[in-house]
């Protein structure tokens, strides 16, 4: 049973466009929702994270939108650049579970110049 479902599996966006990746979770005990970015041959790296007490968090061109009632959250990449081409993972963890994360299946993003 996949507790965090991520879509789409792959995404192609033109340079300057908006990339949107969606995740849905089932466990209402989750209270920390990070996004990780992974370049080929590298380990994932934390990109941005949100807690459920806010509906949106923005860091530069990256924004997380969070909908607690729908149990969904999404990553928006504004003005997408070829350098953003990577695999993106959403994740979730429970309160008092440290950083024991449950990951979504990943989205491979390609930004065309």
């Amino acid at each position, binding site marked *: 049973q996949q507790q*965090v479902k*991520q879509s789409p*599996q792959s995404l192609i966006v033109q340079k300057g466009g908006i990339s949107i990746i969606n995740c849905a979770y089932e466990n209402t005990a989750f209270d920390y929702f990070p996004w990780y970015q992974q370049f080929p*041959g*590298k*380990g*994932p*790296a*934390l990109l941005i994270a949100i807690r459920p007490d806010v509906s949106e968090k923005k860091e530069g061109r990256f924004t997380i939108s969070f909908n607690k009632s729908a149990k969904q959250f999404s990553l928006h990449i504004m003005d997408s650049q070829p350098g953003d081409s990577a695999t993106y*993972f959403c994740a979730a963890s429970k309160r008092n579970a*440290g*950083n*024991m*994360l449950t*990951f*979504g*299946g*990943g989205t491979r993003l390609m930004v065309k110049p």
Partner: protein
Amino acid sequence: NAGVTQTPKFRVLKTGQSMTLLCAQDMNHEYMYWYRQDPGMGLRLIHYSVGEGTTAKGEVPDGYNVSRLKKQNFLLGLESAAPSQTSVYFCASHPARGKLFFGSGTQLSVL
């Protein structure tokens, strides 16, 4: 500043062979994890450790063993490798309250 270092980076095994993957972190982190990454399935937790001398099972522990004899090292062992264990393995660590740092991965093929 090395961070999280995994060795080896690549390995090919025959079915039934054994091997150990080494993870070393130089950040004095308490928590360490082993994940496997498979296409379309994200990262799945194999085993983890909350401190030196402690280990616990994650989501997919079968066929793997781990040890944390020293705080800076977390070893993942495969006693009898199977083709289903072909994957990319990632080690990660974090301090008591802090973000997760990943190593660069070990690509393992079991023939």
